């Protein structure tokens, strides 16, 4: 046997190195084992963290803003509603405000209060028929079109429809450039949804 030819010193070295390498191997296996367990932990954790990320449609639904009689023809009024997606501890923050503009008997526009620039609440001035933003000075005309200032586009508007004399809008999330950029509806709800007449 080849081991028989080794000196006692060399023999103990070999033994030690085999022991060490075996322990190293065990350590490596242990780490791989940890890695696998970690994966089983990490995947649920990431899914848990990403749970608020949903397609826009998952958060939106049709909400009633009230009887159309509440909104006089030719005027723009602030309306409020409770966000359809809310938690019991949301308090006042579950409330959302929007501007309802009634152009004709059955013609409405509903704007988000959020400025299209950075989301500050715009204020309606009926005398000059302008929306003005207090943050960076964006201004919009009565139809929501951009008038001046840093915004690149007009006000965000909600899809709306009238059912049984109730004004309804499709809402549920804070409008931003990433989710409502397509909705430049200067013409309002006309022809956009089911109408009662």
């Amino acid at each position, binding site marked *: 046997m080849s081991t028989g030819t080794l000196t006692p010193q060399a023999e103990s070295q070999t033994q030690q190195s085999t022991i060490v390498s075996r322990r190293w191997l065990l350590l490596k296996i242990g780490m791989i084992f940890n890695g696998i367990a970690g994966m089983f932990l990490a995947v649920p954790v990431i899914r848990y963290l990403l749970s608020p990320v*949903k397609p826009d449609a998952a958060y939106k639904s049709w909400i009633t803003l009230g009887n159309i009689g509440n909104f006089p023809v030719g005027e723009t009024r602030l309306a409020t509603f409770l966000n359809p997606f*809310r*938690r019991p501890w949301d308090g006042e923050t579950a409330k959302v405000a929007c501007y309802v503009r009634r152009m004709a008997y059955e013609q409405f526009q509903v704007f988000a209060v959020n400025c299209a620039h950075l989301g500050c609440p715009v204020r309606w001035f009926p005398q000059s028929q302008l929306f003005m933003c*207090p*943050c*960076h000075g964006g201004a919009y005309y009565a139809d929501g079109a951009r008038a001046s200032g840093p915004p690149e586009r007009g006000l965000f508007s909600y899809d709306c429809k009238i059912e049984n004399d109730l004004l309804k809008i499709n809402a549920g*999330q804070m409008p931003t*450039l990433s989710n409502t950029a397509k909705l430049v509806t200067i013409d309002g709800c006309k022809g956009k949804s089911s109408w009662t007449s």
Partner: protein
Amino acid sequence: MDILKTIYGWLEHRLQLEAPVKDAALHPVPRNTASWWYVFGSAAFTLLILQFVTGILLAIVYVPSAGHAWYSLNVLNQQLELGWFLRAIHGWGSNFMVAVVLIHMVQVFLFGSYKYPRELTWILGVFLLLMTLGMAFTGQVLRFDQDAYWGLGIGASITSRIPFVGGSLVHLLLGGPIIAGATLSRFFALHVFVIPGIMLGFAGLHVWMVLKLGINEWPMPGRTVKRSTYLQEYHELTHKNGIPFVPGALWKDVFFSAAILAAVIVCAVAFGPFGPSGQPDPTIVRTVPKPDFFFLWIYAALAYLPPAMETPCILIAPIIGIGILLALPLYASEGEKSWHRRPVAILVLSTVAVTWGVLTHLASFTPWSPHMDAWSGDPVPPKYLRTATPLVRQGAAVFQAKQCRNCHSLEGNGGNRGPALDAVASRMTEDQMIRQVLQGGGNMPAYGKNLSPAETTALVGFLETLHPAGDLPASNASLEEAEERQTQSVPETKR
């Protein structure tokens, strides 16, 4: 005494901290680093500890629920004994901490301390600065008032501009589709657990490296850093002409930290806590949100960026800025440390400082924002109406009623969004004014749809009277010329 010694001996036998602590305390530092310029780092650490302690004390009362946070802050302010004081200390401590961290960074930059072998100390410092700012922002969110609510709205709006993933990131940031309970909860977790935890670790490493690598020597023009010789030179500097860190340098740190703590206390007592302002009710649109002091410059920059440049600037500029800060010690790890021989560094620093100062100053009075109540709150100065005709008075009424005043000031009152109109008639003719009012332009909305012809006539009639007493109103020279030629060509109709 003997009992104390026994207890100490018992503990030391187990902890064995004496040797490393002695090592750290007595390590020699260059004689000239025992300077008042070197006290800002330790002051920042002292403030960090102050923020931890006061933060924990506030957390035993604060309710991180969107429905209750604002009320719990008001209880702290008004009902709980000295709750206002704790809030004030935490708020002022935050301001002082950002300021001291920035000053510390400027000092380190000026002294070239980021060069070899202290590159990583600087890089960790950059992350500590970012986390300090992160704490300031998340702290402002926890003060769950109107400014916090709309500040989150601005954060979400900026996030939404990120291409492709913007919408998903907004959901992640807000914890749902709107700013609500989930939003506050996650900012609470960030402010109370995540960022402070990382900060403590990073600050520990930062201090560890200062102890291990030694305090940067006072920079001398001509004494350049070379990788091959620096460690040897530093060793000689500290061992031939050095002094022990304790008490040689530390006594100044201790004094300055105490002074900073005293300043925080004085400010807290004198000025009280920050907010909360109005309750976070998003249906209250009569609000003028504004960020805290150290974010005012961003607020100003966002008002002045041209719309087309805005998204690229918001998204790319921070990455470039942070990238430059992180790369600085790697790019310039050798060479001159002294500010006497680094003109570019001085120029960059002064440019950044002046820009920051100007933007912050502008944001303190927001000339770009309309004054929402000027039309009803700031009357037309009587002197403009003393000799006015009925038409001019009617015009002044139109001027106020149509909110012109929100953007245009008279005698210094009113908005600064548009030019002051005290002398508008000196620079614009009647025709130009009518065109500007009806069609808008520049940064002005068009009023064509909102003014009747009679209102326009009255308004421009009023504006025509706004010129210095001795001056004639502006007139159309070419029109006069044409009229004159007409009269010359027909000699019998003399003027």
